[in-house]
């Protein structure tokens, strides 16, 4: 069942069309990857979907409802979470606290109860922490729960961001280069993690440069070149398409690659 539907999205920055006429649909439990050379507009597309940019035209629908003009926090409340290409973790909070913020929408938050630290707040806090530890466990960070996030390794921060996004119990998860800067072992872990997430019925939209990872786990792949859709298909179709190779390597490079 389709959960995220993006249709005819376009956005321009000062006359430059960063994205033009991009549309796709993602079903529950599907891993949908967006690939393309640097500057193709992948992250911009993510920013449009997650409500950080407002598109010049087009529509984003979540569960059939138009959410194009909603702010990121309102989108989060409707079940859309994301991670960032450049890390956006809460550096001065512990790993567990980072994930607890991810539970924000699941928590009751009353200013006066919090100021007085009523017993209900303490109870809820304990439950939230338990839940957070569970999500840290899923990404293999349980042992680092009480470490300041700012002192975690790069790979650990990447996984922490995923844990925080999962803590919101999203129905659509946007992952912006989760494996960037990770070594082979870490990439493998992320690969398994994404598959587990999708198996739970969460729609995963992935931007990633690690082609091995993308080809291995994606159900569908969209190739974006200079803000336009080149092709959308399953990994086999994308791999066999000469235009994709050309987009990455140029005409000459594609010929060379074909000969090799």
């Amino acid at each position, binding site marked *: 069942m389709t959960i995220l539907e993006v249709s005819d999205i376009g956005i321009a920055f000062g006359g430059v069309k960063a994205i033009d006429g991009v549309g796709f649909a993602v079903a529950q439990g599907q891993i949908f990857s967006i690939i393309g050379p640097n500057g193709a507009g992948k992250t911009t597309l993510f920013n449009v979907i997650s409500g*950080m940019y407002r598109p010049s035209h087009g529509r984003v629908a979540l569960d059939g409802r138009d959410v194009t003009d909603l702010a990121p926090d309102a989108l989060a409340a409707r079940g859309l979470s994301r991670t*960032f290409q450049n890390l956006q973790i*809460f550096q001065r909070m512990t790993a567990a606290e980072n994930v607890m*913020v991810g539970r924000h929408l699941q928590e009751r938050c009353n200013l006066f109860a919090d100021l007085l630290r009523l017993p209900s707040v303490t109870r809820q806090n304990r439950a939230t922490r338990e839940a957070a530890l569970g999500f840290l466990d899923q990404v293999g960070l349980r042992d680092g729960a009480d470490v300041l996030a700012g002192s975690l390794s790069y790979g650990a921060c990447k996984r922490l961001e995923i844990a925080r996004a999962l803590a919101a119990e999203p129905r659509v998860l946007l992952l912006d280069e989760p494996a960037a800067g990770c070594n082979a072992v870490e990439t493998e872990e992320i690969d398994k993690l994404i598959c587990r997430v999708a198996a739970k019925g969460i729609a995963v939209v992935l931007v990633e440069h690690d082609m091995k990872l993308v080809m291995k786990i994606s159900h569908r792949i969209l190739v974006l070149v200079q803000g336009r859709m080149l092709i959308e298909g399953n990994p086999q179709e994308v791999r066999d398409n000469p235009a994709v190779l050309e987009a990455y390597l140029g005409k000459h490079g594609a010929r060379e690659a074909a000969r090799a």
Partner: protein
Amino acid sequence: MARLNHRYVILVVLAAVIALLPLVFPSSYYLRVAALVWVSAFAAIGLNILMGKAGQVSLGHAGFFGIGAYAVAILPARFGLPSLVALAIGAALSALLAFLVGRPILRLKGHYLAIATLGFGVLVAMVITTESRWTGGPDGMAVAKLSLFGWRASGSATWYWITGGLLLIGAWIALNLDDTPTGRAFRALHDSEIAARVTGVDVNRFKLQAFVIAAVYGSIAGSALAMMNGFINPDQAGFLHSVELVTMVVLGGLGSVVGSIVGAAVLIVLPQLLTVFQDYENLMLGAIIILSMIFMRDGMVPMAWKLLTRTGR
């Protein structure tokens, strides 16, 4: 669990310090200075929730201090209201004003927010100075003594205990906030506003909440100081006082409740000590602040804590 205990340790130590200090004070002059510290610390703790936790600057915070102070001056004198009711009205007015002003200006960031809050503070001070029919103008006005059921609060010792109690409550509330959804939302938007938003934190709402909390703290501190001094003038609402409050917060340590108290103590006590240097008092004070910012950028309390835990291990 360690966190929970941590909170009570701070409160118990603070209560002990407040209770025991009078035993070593040789004269009531010291009680008065200490009471000034408690009042300023109360305001600084509130401002620290905004600056240290939520990461938003306010250079006009003395405006709220002034509103609280003039509320307990004007309302009892003109309308015969009891001082405590006046204090509550002042706090409510500050909260309302913070809400109305905060909505547009908290969308600004960094320097822009600083200038906007500065403008607000200047505006309040200007109104207080020019509306002399109500406020006594630049000369200030007398403030009625606080009285409760016929008992009148006066004298350094009495005010020492009142302000000390107030500080304990203020510290308790600020410490409460730390491990709650609201406190976490504040800290989250401080570290990464964009990440806070995508995790569902309504950033504007929480900035506004922090601003209103800080305003109420400032207003109550202003009321307390006015009642303690029995007199008030527009300087309390002025820009220099705003800067002083910010300095207390930054010097003591952003985000640290104990830091705000230490910062207030330094800024109140130091000038008293430096009077021996007469003309160079302000110069010395300025130099001390500059040096501590160079060598203790995290603020005095977080810095001391780091040193302690490092040698302890």
